[in-house]
């Protein structure tokens, strides 16, 4: 009986921080798949579009050089003037463009997507979950 009681105490001691972490930790995983924000698409949907998609990598050149989605074009805010012409060379009117950056907390892809849309590049989507979503599905 004593052992059971001690086990319950240990369980309680573990549950308290676990609950706090699940409620407040900034890196906590979602309980369920979040709803899509306007302009976002899930990886599965993008993959169903086939090879016609133009992937845009909004991360730094260093991260891009380390690894990127095959055939993705680098386009970030830091080097916009240098990289935008190369994007234009690759992009075809009406081609679906999907922008990704490094993590769920990163808003770089939204900023790049917004700037593309302001230049009449349509349609442009942001990959939900970013690079991590791609890596985890490989």
């Amino acid at each position: 009986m004593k052992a059971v009681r001690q086990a319950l105490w240990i369980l309680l001691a573990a549950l308290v921080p676990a609950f706090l972490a699940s409620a407040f930790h900034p890196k906590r995983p979602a309980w369920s798949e979040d709803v899509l924000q306007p302009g976002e698409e899930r990886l599965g949907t993008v993959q169903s579009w086939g090879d016609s998609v133009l992937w845009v990598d909004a991360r730094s050149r260093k991260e891009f050089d380390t690894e990127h989605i095959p055939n993705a074009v680098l386009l970030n805010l830091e080097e916009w003037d240098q990289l935008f012409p190369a994007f234009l060379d690759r992009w075809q009117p009406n081609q679906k463009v999907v922008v990704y950056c490094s993590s769920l907390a990163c808003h770089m892809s939204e900023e790049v997507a917004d700037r593309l849309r302001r230049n009449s590049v349509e349609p442009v989507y942001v990959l939900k979950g970013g690079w991590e979503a791609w890596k985890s599905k490989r």
Partner: protein
Amino acid sequence: MRFLPFLFVLLTTPLFGQLKWENPDQTFVPKPQDKEVIARYRFTNAGTIPVTISDVHTSCGCTTAALQKKQYGPGESGEIAAAFNIAGRTGHQEKDIYVTTSAALLNPTVLRLKVDIPESIKIEPQLVMWRLGDQPVAKTIRIAVPDEIPAKVVSVVTDNQAVKLDLREIRPGKELEVRVTPQGTTQAAATTLVIRTDYPPGNPETHYAYARVK
């Protein structure tokens, strides 16, 4: 019941060890030519036991320098420096720095870096495009330099003859309309508009807009 002391330590550490931050929420307004801003967050261990900084991570586009040390005794002070690369960005930006310490393992401190980046020039749109076979009608690019920026546009030229430019200065050097007309739309063409300014002196900025027939 031997585990109770550990439970006690876990639950009471935040009461005895805590970092007090001098200015956890900082705002910057950089100059137009600045490439980055650096925020320094100073802290003091206001508790009675040592505090260990176990993790520091940031929103992307923002980096923190490595800490010289991780453990700070009672009364000891330290600093976390965060650099935000603002090149290419404009407008209001907010970045968060999450600091996890032994005093609050489950509840990281959030330091905030706000930056209002002035736009040195506005080019809208940066791209004008015609589909193959479209009517070769003129499209307009508007260029404006904010009054608070001591710059003027000194020239707008193209790198080839695939388009014709018609410049109209609304306010000399400060506000221009550029009407771009392709010579034809029967074949693909790519043109860069080179927009030169006179600021900053010695190394004046050049900006770009693009015309495409695709």
